[in-house]
């Protein structure tokens, strides 16, 4: 038995008792259709020139009849092929994308979505980005000040506090984003293929601990990933999205096994 699997069994035991009965996210009848014009007229000139020309629009159904309830303290995994609608689902939850008419998104807490490569203004320093992101999330300067050292410590960026983020490596950016997110007192953390292979072993252990603490404090995590072993380690429940529909949901081992059977 290697180290990893020991950890897995422990963390599962740790986590599984913590899920509460309170619903923190409820998605009801969520559909999402994108209208993509074959030729997109999105400038004034083109709009004026093609005023009377009917536009051919292609409907792309990104999500179909999604009904999902997520409890406070739950670790939910989301799997599915590329383009199946996983990120769209998360953006619906953050409110970045409005659902089609009739759908209802109820969120009962503060929510942060992390995804690779975004989240910072590259010209600003780590310190400034911490303040911008922190106050966008809803923290006062005082609160951010109190947590500032913890964030820097966690991200291991002590000597780069006042360096513009554009000089950071992708690993450093990831660390900073994750450090802000877990210290931001958000209730829900949406991780959209966030740990795309960056982060060394040290950071891995740290984030492992952070995950557990986060869940212990009754926070909710939704993780979209292709790293299935990660889900087996942490998730209480995994949903499988295929062409915009939830085709499978439940016990991680089972759902992942069914998902893998698709490929064989």
């Amino acid at each position, binding site marked *: 038995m290697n180290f990893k699997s020991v950890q897995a069994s422990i963390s599962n035991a740790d986590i599984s008792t913590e899920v509460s009965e309170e619903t923190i996210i409820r998605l009801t009848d969520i559909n999402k259709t*994108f209208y993509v014009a074959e030729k997109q007229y*999105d*400038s*004034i*000139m083109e*709009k004026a020139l093609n005023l009377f020309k009917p536009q051919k629009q292609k409907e792309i159904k990104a999500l179909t009849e999604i009904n999902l309830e997520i409890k406070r303290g739950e670790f939910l995994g989301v799997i599915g092929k590329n383009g199946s609608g996983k990120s769209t689902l998360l*953006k619906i939850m*953050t*409110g*970045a*994308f*409005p659902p089609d008419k009739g759908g209802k998104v109820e*969120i*009962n*807490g*503060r*929510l*942060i*979505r*992390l*995804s690779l490569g*975004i*989240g*910072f*203004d590259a*010209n*600003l320093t780590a310190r*400034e980005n911490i*303040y*911008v*992101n922190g*106050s*966008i*999330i*809803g*923290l*006062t*300067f005082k*609160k951010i000040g109190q947590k500032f050292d913890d964030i820097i410590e966690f991200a291991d960026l002590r000597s780069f506090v006042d360096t*513009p983020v554009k000089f950071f490596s992708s690993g450093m950016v990831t660390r900073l984003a994750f450090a802000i997110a877990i210290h931001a*007192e958000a209730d829900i953390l949406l991780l959209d293929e966030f740990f795309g292979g960056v982060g060394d072993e040290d950071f891995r252990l740290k984030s492992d601990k952070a995950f557990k603490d986060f869940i212990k404090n009754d926070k909710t995590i939704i993780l979209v990933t292709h790293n299935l072993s990660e889900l087996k380690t942490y998730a209480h429940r995994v949903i499988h999205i295929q062409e915009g529909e939830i085709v499978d949901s439940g016990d991680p081992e089972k759902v992942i096994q069914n998902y893998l059977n698709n490929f064989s």
Partner: protein
Amino acid sequence: MVDTFVASFFKRIPENNKLERIWVLAKVDFKSRYYYHKLGVFWALIRPAIEILVYYSIFTSLFKTDIEHFELYLFSGLLFWYFFVEGTSKGINVLLSKRYLIESVQFNKVDLLISTTLSALMGFLFNFLAYLLISIIVGGFPFFWTMIYFPVLLLITCLMVLGFSLILSTLSIYLKDIQHFWDMIVMAGFWMTPIVYSQEIFLENLPWLLYVNPMAGLVINLHNVLLYGTPPDFQILGYSFALSLVVFFIGLGLFSKFSHKAAEKI
């Protein structure tokens, strides 16, 4: 049951940090314009200086303008004009440049527009300091009691900038080339505002422009209170104020109706 409802309500809004958020957004916006490019401050100063120099030379030597203290007349008009142009241009781009925030967290996007307006206001205040300095040097101590109206004018201009920013940023969701379109409007607007020519000529020949160009009335009253020491034309002032309110509420209405599409379309 009521208790839990109240408790959950307060839990959802733990602290109100709206003002701090607007402040930090404005601050980084201002800084990134002037500090992060090493020559930012230099360019920020040299461009208006050259512009003033060019207009000054042309209108004194070629057109023989008879405006007294033309350099102050020019500068004071340009103060408001630059504020308006910079504020609205920042507003057009803010949904795009802050997309990384919109996609990650839920927050009131109007804060972004307030912050760009505030950032442009900071630029204005620096220009205003320069203006005061120059006016002391070339005009003695030209301080009039009518300057108490200056904050009123500034407030109306802020509302105007915010209103136009809201409208333009809403349009920017659907029209990618709105910036070019706005640049043209602004270019025309400059010559439709009494900045390089006298406001008497303007009011005599093109009085209707006052109602088309929202900045014309503001610049005229700015000249009155800052330069001539006369009280503002209250009719024009009233119109400016009413118009700024109308623009602001139209902007707010449009923005709240369409801004939820921002992350999807931009």
